[in-house]
């Protein structure tokens, strides 16, 4: 039977359908990206060439001068190191804690209570969380002052010396990451919990019948089966962590060796357009592999259907 005329479409028609979306993407994503890349080659005011910023007797990368700053300046190298630390610590811990809670909560009757407790911080903004944890970590150094920070009140309560969580290195970086984990463990738990609940009961049943204990069941059956979901959670977290800003900005302002890439970018945007946009491009470049991996995996999944 011949296809009705109305169902026949030329090569042009599909493009017309996606045109509005393409336009929006072009205006709000492609153009700003290209413009940012252009600005990253300009000087502090965003008008002249970046080469104008070179000082006599100092190393100079010409038009790529802002990238020299982004890759070699000591504050930037601290920021790059810290972002790497955040990745290595916050991502595994957030996924790990989320998975642990998802698996354990599955086995108790008060599951929804546990899950809502863990999920609650997600309802708080980064800024709010930063302010809350500033109080958690607060330290009083005066002779006649009580510790108002919860942690230091507990520490001094058992007779120990108060700890300056925000200003002593290296614990301050880990104290900040703790806030990130606290915020995002709920996200990871929710998604992993849904994945676990979606596992077909027959498979688990079969494994148990075959004599697998719960430990083997977890590592050899559940984990491989929810691995795609774990990857989704991990890649999402990697992107979030690369862009981490609010927590650091609110809690230490990047002082005491806690600087991160996005905070440098924010600090410089008003006073040095070139450097700030070069950092933005650097951040984008760091994110691209993760994005690529995500898209590729998505396509593979589509292909499997």
């Amino acid at each position: 039977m011949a296809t009705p005329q109305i169902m026949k479409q030329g090569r042009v028609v599909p493009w017309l359908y996606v045109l509005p979306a393409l336009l929006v993407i072009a205006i709000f994503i492609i153009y700003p990206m290209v413009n940012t890349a252009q600005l990253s080659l300009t000087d502090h005011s965003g008008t002249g060439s970046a080469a104008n910023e070179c000082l006599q007797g100092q190393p100079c990368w010409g038009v790529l001068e802002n990238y020299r700053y982004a890759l070699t300046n000591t504050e930037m190298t601290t920021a790059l190191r810290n972002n790497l630390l955040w990745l290595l610590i916050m991502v595994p811990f957030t996924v790990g804690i989320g998975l642990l809670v998802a698996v354990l909560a599955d086995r108790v009757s008060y599951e929804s209570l546990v899950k809502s407790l863990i999920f609650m911080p997600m309802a708080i903004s980064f800024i709010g969380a930063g302010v809350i944890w500033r109080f958690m970590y607060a330290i009083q150094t005066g002779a006649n002052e009580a510790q108002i920070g919860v942690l230091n009140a507990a520490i001094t309560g058992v007779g120990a010396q108060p700890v300056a969580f925000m200003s002593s290195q290296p614990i301050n970086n880990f104290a900040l990451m703790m806030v990130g984990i606290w915020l995002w463990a709920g996200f990871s738990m929710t998604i992993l919990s849904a994945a676990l609940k979606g596992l077909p009961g027959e498979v688990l049943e079969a494994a148990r019948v075959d004599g697998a204990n719960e430990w083997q069941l977890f590592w050899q059956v559940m984990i491989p089966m929810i691995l795609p979901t774990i990857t989704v959670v991990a890649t999402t977290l990697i992107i979030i962590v690369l862009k981490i800003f609010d927590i650091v900005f609110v809690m230490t302002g990047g002082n005491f060796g806690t600087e991160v890439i996005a905070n440098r970018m924010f600090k410089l945007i008003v006073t040095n357009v070139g450097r700030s946009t070069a950092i933005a491009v650097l951040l984008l470049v760091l994110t691209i592999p993760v994005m690529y991996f995500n898209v590729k995996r998505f396509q593979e999944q589509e292909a499997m259907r």
Partner: protein
Amino acid sequence: MKGKLFAVVSLMMVFGLMVTACGPAATPQPAPATQAPQPTAAPTEAMAQPTATEAAMMGGIDCTGVSSGDTLSVMYQWSGAEEEKFNTIAKPFLDACGVTLNAESTRDAAVLDTRVKSTPPDVLFWPSTSVTNLYGDQMQDLTALGAHTDNYASFWTTAGMMNGKLLTLPAKADIKTIIWYSPAQFDAFGYSVPSTFAELNTLVEQMVADGNVPWSMGMESGDATGWTGSDFIQDLLLTQQGPDFVNGIIDGSVAYDDQGVQDAYAIYQKWASDPKYTVGGATGTVNTAFLDAIYKPFADPPEAMMVKQSGFAGGEIVKQFPNLQYGTDFDFFQFPGAQGMQGGADYMFAFGSSAATMAFVKYITSTEGGANWAAAGFDESPNTGAAGNYPDEQLAKKSDMLANAQGFTPDLGDALGNPFSSAEWKAIVDVVQGGDISTELAAVAAAQKESLAQ
């Protein structure tokens, strides 16, 4: 049923947490450095007495050449209470000469730029002299307009000169080279207010020997942490090197890692990082909010003897301890031995040369203009005519200090901008925590070069 109960309980807990989360989130953040020194909010100033104002408004106003109905366009950054104070000051002139004022208030340098390039205002008030570099060619020589330059200290007229023309005079200034203390505590321990840096040093050591903590140096201020240290160090520089040295840092003739700067940092490091000299030592300095630091010398019992902070601290002390009296419970003295003052100032520039402009410039710089400015209580007037006309003791005291100063320097960070200013704050934080002074200052000196190149 059970599931539903849990859902309800969980939901309530979520809301409960959100409510508690909102509390701390709404806590106001410490104001950044540039906004902090705004003494206009000090409650004492609100008591400006109208009788004093009226009394000061007597006197002749020179309206030569002005015909009634002339207009005068003015541009400034003031708004709200500040703008009202300016209007109070301008009113006697406007009434006497029959001039109509067209005022425009903006903080936006871009708006100023557009106006100057199309229809410049007759008179501009701006908180920085840097506009002379941009629009100096269009500006009028204030001496030619008839400004009473003899009412100003020579360092003001020297600073306002460019290519042989006097382009600007200060309309008002607010100094921050001061230290707050409790006269009651000083009396109790038999301390007297030091007048030289050597005396200050002796006093500090005496306090330590007595088991008192001399300083409250807390400086935490979010991502602006370090600015109170920057003020302190600039006062040390003004004491030990003088205003020319500080202005040299601003024009680049003195590198920020100069031995003089290193010496000032050494003193600062000694005081700010040792628990004998400051509340909590280095940890206390970097973790204590600058507002909390202001309260410490006035708490009961006091945790420290002195706090170095700008004029706005007076208002903060009254807010925190409403029962304390200025003069007996809290007071301030000039940073001992300071050869010049640091602070913020609003400068006057003229683009027009009409009769009304000339008359206005003459009025503002005249003895009457200075007196009226003081009577309105709009910060300190550098005009010598201001003396004795302030409605507020604290302003009068600061004005005396300014009148006796041998120089005036703007805040280094404000004058040089970034990247200098953030590099300076970072170096201060690092030095307090034991960083090597010469290494840290080398980085700031590099940033100083970058700032100057911009």
